[in-house]
């Protein structure tokens, strides 16, 4: 067409035609169009002929061309043609959409209405204002989340719900694609099994296996969990499901050039999925196998080669494209800025232009020379990059200094370290030390660069510890010294004993693969015991066991009677026997998205939460087999059961039993309706603070909900939430010197620039100085005083840091709570808790001194515990937080001073406790922890009121606590013994006894069960024995001797039974 049709729109029209038209038809159709154009040119002139050409081409965009005709070209095997009738196609589409509808309805009904715990709060806040969350980020997820947040229509309390719906919809689509994929794989299985069933029966079987498999996945524990909250795993599952479906489409198309388009689409989706989660890369080996089976005559060595090539491909994307290209851009940047002296960004621009030109050239030349494979490769590469392009938003948004700006990836250099998650450190994979190894030296790695005034400056060097060769091993699994005790108890080591390689492997199989993966797999397809951390899967030996009422009532106690699991095994076995090739494909998918991740993550013995959601990909693969069990069963019994109708109906009923039991068991513990306390507790914490305050938090998990409340719901955003653990990083200190929402910038005595010069630690050096004044110390540091330097490290010369207080000035400010004037001190004396001061402690001290009591400064329990200086004596509890004030707690039997007036107003009148008294709502342990905090804080308030003699008010506080957070929604917890003793003190004897009985009886029942169950070392057991003992003491002290005696007997009974097992738990 080049020579005839010169003008662009006409060529475009023909190009478009080429895209949708079956390749075998294109040439002749194009010929007809050109001939018509020539005729028209003669008859009506060139201009009108051109217009007609466009019209004529566009008219080809119709069903007869784009869909139906291609059947005749793709059909391969006889059954293929027959099954691919229009009739089946419609049924397949319709059933798929019905399954989609079921999934979407389920997720819409059970979706969380506000922000969920953990990272969800951060993701929602980051989506809503397009901010920069923790590395490596999820820019595409955030962009889509932003789009979904528009559907809140300006009501910022609905934003979380809208973003959660992104997951719900993505998950429903995952189910749709899974359904279609099961049918496609099922068709291959039916073909391969040479089934004697009739065509109509096969069609029915295919549909039913799709329904059973996809619904089983839809209602599986972990997938459902991720489908109803704003995490990346739902979107990530969707991309997995789409690429698998795409490769099956590719597989079913004979014609090369058309099929290759599917490969390029896969590349684009893989690229896009990088902007959600890297998990998707792990599907590539399975896809490669599909490719290999279609293109080559399979052999053992061939399969091995295919796997190696695909492994290389994964590494190519994971290690070369994702971090490699930005790193390369970093080298360019360094060269052009530091060596040539050009402006910032010049290197990156040159790099981008070079890359684009190379790709354009490569695509053109391979097209001209007809190198189809290379051409496809370069196109795919380009499309991966296009998908990956969502990452540019990270740099763009970071440069707007968004309030959430983790790692501040503003330039190429910091972007690379953001991508590589350098903030988190790394875990050894192939080679490294055992946890018992002592480092013998420090290895300095490549320098890190930070943006200076007009060039990049060396910010520091990456450090790694060196170990002696004999302490190192290949595949170190027990490596993390922080968890030494846990490793020892799992492996069974004595103190000081080093694990050998067998024990190392034992740990991998027993703990990493067993507990941290197989247990989760069984949760999903066999059932789980409860939602307590560490809960086992539902073993058949436990099916009919009688449990204490509280344990039996756990909503997450789900027994599937192993039905889905057994079906999966049947399908797996049948596919292995009948259709071995495709069994390898699914098997690889199953392993790569399951065990391979386990091995890669090299997880330590304890994790802050259950990690089942990471492995959803392998449960996805397993669900194919659940579906295929239908074909297996029908095919196996078609001789025994003569009546085919009966056979098919019976098979369907057996199959549908799996998703049915899963949804029935799973509904109550996946239904997140009406829960708001994740957000209410965050708002309560923020509202505990005065305007313009600074609140220190410990780390991610106690901070993210506060960020959410501030950024999304505009709660108290004059407050500055400062993450203490981030304060060790220079980028974070830099950020605090900027305005953030309504919160004014900080100023420091040391100054943000000088902080960069101070290393991570300032160690104590004994210079025989008793105390050092904080202000002086900071000023000396600011001046880089040589007396405070030891080698290249700064020191702290005293173990007591003092802050002088101008009492008059403080009283004039009116910040001392009423009644605490007498506790005001002339000088605060802060003790060093260890022989070291971290940079973050310095930042805290600096703010305390420099703000000079103009801005209120607060700590929450976690940041209090992290500080290396003892602030406890100067902390005044106000609601959920501790305000630091120059008053000293005079009592040693009280942990903190309590501002009773403010506390009462906050906790009783202002705090929100939505839904905590509604026993129909399902609350997990995450909520129980927040409730425990609130109950304890109310207890402290009541105690302080009693100390002041305000008995009646204290009584009101305690009853309020019992009413707002009753046992029926969140069972009494370790705060209850205190509540009981306080109830006695305020004269609520009846309530106290009632509560004590409930707690003690329950504790006795549960502990007794756990001991008889052989569960003698669990946290649950320790907790319940503690509760029982504490209640007994309480009752005894308060004159309830009969009851106390009763519980004492139970207590000693438990202990003697435990001694029988030789395991007496420590009191805590």
């Amino acid at each position, binding site marked *: 067409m080049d020579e005839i049709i010169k003008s662009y729109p006409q060529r475009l029209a023909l190009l478009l035609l080429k895209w949708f038209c079956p390749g075998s038809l294109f*040439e*002749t159709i194009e*010929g007809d*169009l050109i*001939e018509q154009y020539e005729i028209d040119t003669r008859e009506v002139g060139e201009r009108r002929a051109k217009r007609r050409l466009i019209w004529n081409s566009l008219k080809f965009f119709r069903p*007869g061309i784009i869909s139906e005709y291609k059947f005749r070209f793709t059909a391969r095997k006889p059954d293929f043609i027959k099954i691919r009738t229009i009739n089946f196609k419609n049924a397949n589409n319709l059933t798929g959409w019905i399954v989609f509808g079921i999934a979407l309805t389920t997720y819409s009904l059970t979706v969380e209405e506000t922000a969920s715990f953990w990272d969800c709060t951060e993701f929602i806040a980051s989506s809503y204002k397009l901010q920069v969350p923790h590395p490596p980020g999820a820019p595409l997820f955030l962009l889509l989340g932003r789009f979904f947040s528009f559907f809140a229509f300006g009501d910022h309390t609905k934003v979380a719900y809208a973003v959660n719906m992104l997951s719900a919809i993505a998950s429903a689509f995952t189910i749709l694609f899974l359904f279609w994929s099961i049918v496609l794989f099922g068709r291959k299985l039916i073909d391969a099994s040479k089934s004697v069933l009739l065509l109509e029966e096969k069609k029915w079987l295919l549909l039913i296996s799709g329904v059973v498999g996809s619904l089983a996945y839809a209602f599986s524990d972990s997938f459902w969990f991720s489908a109803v909250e704003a995490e990346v795993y739902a979107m990530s599952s969707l991309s997995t499901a789409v690429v698998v479906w795409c490769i099956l489409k590719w597989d079913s198309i004979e014609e090369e050039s058309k099929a290759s388009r599917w490969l390029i689409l896969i590349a684009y989706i893989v690229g896009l999925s990088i902007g959600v989660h890297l998990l998707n890369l792990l599907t590539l080996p399975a896809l490669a196998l599909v490719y290999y089976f279609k293109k080559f005559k399979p052999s053992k060595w061939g399969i091995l080669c295919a796997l190696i090539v695909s492994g290389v491909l994964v590494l190519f994307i994971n290690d070369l494209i994702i971090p490699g290209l930005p790193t390369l851009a970093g080298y360019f940047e360094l060269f052009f800025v530091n060596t040539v002296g050009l402006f910032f960004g010049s290197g990156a621009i040159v790099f981008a232009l070079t890359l684009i030109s190379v790709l354009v050239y490569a695509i053109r030349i391979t097209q001209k020379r007809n190198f189809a494979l290379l051409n496809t490769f370069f196109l795919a590469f380009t499309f991966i990059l296009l998908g990956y392009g969502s990452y540019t938003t990270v740099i763009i948004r970071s440069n707007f200094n968004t309030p959430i700006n983790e790692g501040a990836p503003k330039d190429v250099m910091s972007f690379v370290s953001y991508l590589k998650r350098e903030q988190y450190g790394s875990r050894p994979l192939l080679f490294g030390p055992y946890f018992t190894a002592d480092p013998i030296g420090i290895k300095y790695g490549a320098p890190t660069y930070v943006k200076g005034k007009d060039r990049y400056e060396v910010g520091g060097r990456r450090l790694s510890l060196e170990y002696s060769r004999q302490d190192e091993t290949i595949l170190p699994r027990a490596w993390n010294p922080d968890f030494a005790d846990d490793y020892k108890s799992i492996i069974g080591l004595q103190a000081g004993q080093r694990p050998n390689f067998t024990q190392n492997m034992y740990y991998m199989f027993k703990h990493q693969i067993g507990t941290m993966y197989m247990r989760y797999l069984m949760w999903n397809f066999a059932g789980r015991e409860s939602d307590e951390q560490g809960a086992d899967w539902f073993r058949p030996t436990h099916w009919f066991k009688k449990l204490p009422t509280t344990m039996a009532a756990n909503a997450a106690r789900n027994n599937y009677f192993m039905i889905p699991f057994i079906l999966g095994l049947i399908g797996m076995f049948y596919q292995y026997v009948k259709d071995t090739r495709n069994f390898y494909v699914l098997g690889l998918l199953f392993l790569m998205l399951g065990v391979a991740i386990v091995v890669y993550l090299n997880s330590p013995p304890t994790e802050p939460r259950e990690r089942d959601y990471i492995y959803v990909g392998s449960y996805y693969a397993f669900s194919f087999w659940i579906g295929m069990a239908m074909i297996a069963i029908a095919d196996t019994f078609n001789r025994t059961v003569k009546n085919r109708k009966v056979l098919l109906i019976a098979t369907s009923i057996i199959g549908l039993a799996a998703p049915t039991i899963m949804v029935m068991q799973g509904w109550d513990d996946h239904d997140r309706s009406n829960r708001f306390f994740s957000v209410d507790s965050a708002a309560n914490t923020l509202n505990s603070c005065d305007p313009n305050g600074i609140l220190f938090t410990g780390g991610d998990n106690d901070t993210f909900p506060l960020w959410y409340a501030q950024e999304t719901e505009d709660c108290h955003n004059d407050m500055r939430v400062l993450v203490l653990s981030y304060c060790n990083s220079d980028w974070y200190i830099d950020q605090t010197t900027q305005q953030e929402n309504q919160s004014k910038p900080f100023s420091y005595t040391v100054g943000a620039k000088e902080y960069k010069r101070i290393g991570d630690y300032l160690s104590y050096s004994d210079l025989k100085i008793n105390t050092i004044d904080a202000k002086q110390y900071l000023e000396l540091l600011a001046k880089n005083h040589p007396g405070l330097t030891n080698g290249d490290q700064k020191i702290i010369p005293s173990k007591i840091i003092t802050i002088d207080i101008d009492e008059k000035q403080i009283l004039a400010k009116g910040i001392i709570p009423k009644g605490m004037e007498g506790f005001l001190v002339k000088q605060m004396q802060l003790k060093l808790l260890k022989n070291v001061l971290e940079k973050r402690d310095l930042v805290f001290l600096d703010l305390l001194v420099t703000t000079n009591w103009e801005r209120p400064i607060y700590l929450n329990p976690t940041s209090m515990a992290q500080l290396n200086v003892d602030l406890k004596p100067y902390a005044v509890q106000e609601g959920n937080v501790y305000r630091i004030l120059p008053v000293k707690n005079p009592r040693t039997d009280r942990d903190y001073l309590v501002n009773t007036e403010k506390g009462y107003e906050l906790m009783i009148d202002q705090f929100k406790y939505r839904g905590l008294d509604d026993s129909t709502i399902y609350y997990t342990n995450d909520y129980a922890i927040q409730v425990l905090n609130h109950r304890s804080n109310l207890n402290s308030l009541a105690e302080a009121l009693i100390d002041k003699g305000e008995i009646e008010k204290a009584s009101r506080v305690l009853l309020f606590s019992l009413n707002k957070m009753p046992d029926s929604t969140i069972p009494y917890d370790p705060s209850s013994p205190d509540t009981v003793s306080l109830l006695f003190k305020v004269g609520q004897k009846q309530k106290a006894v009632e509560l004590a009985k409930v707690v003690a009886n329950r504790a006795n029942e549960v502990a007794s069960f756990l001991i008889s169950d052989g569960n003698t070392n669990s946290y649950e057991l320790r907790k319940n024995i503690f509760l029982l003992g504490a209640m007994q003491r309480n009752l005894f002290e308060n004159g309830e001797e009969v009851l106390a005696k009763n519980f004492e007997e139970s207590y000693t009974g438990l202990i003697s039974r435990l001694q029988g097992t030789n395991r007496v738990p420590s009191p805590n």
Partner: protein
Amino acid sequence: MGKEYLGELEELILTMVGLLQEDAYGNAIIKEIREQVNRNVSLAAAHVTLYRLEGKGYIKSHVGGATKTRGGRRKRIFTITSAGLSVLRAMKEDRIKLWKLVPQLRSN
């Protein structure tokens, strides 16, 4: 299904394929239709109908040799099959039969 149903355009185009014999391809067919019955059929419609007829087995197609005109693109030549011929014949007979059953108008 009993006798295959043939749409009006299908019938017209099938006839044209029969009529044009060795020279039945897209442009020629619509040109012939314009000349014979003065009706404009778009290329796309003609092609879709041709493929449908091919699917039903009434015509078959092969790709012709290279040409100098039409940008060197080859033609897809359609030829009528015996099934196609018999269905045309059957339809013609049906029509005639029906026509005979219609009460004829008398002239004046």
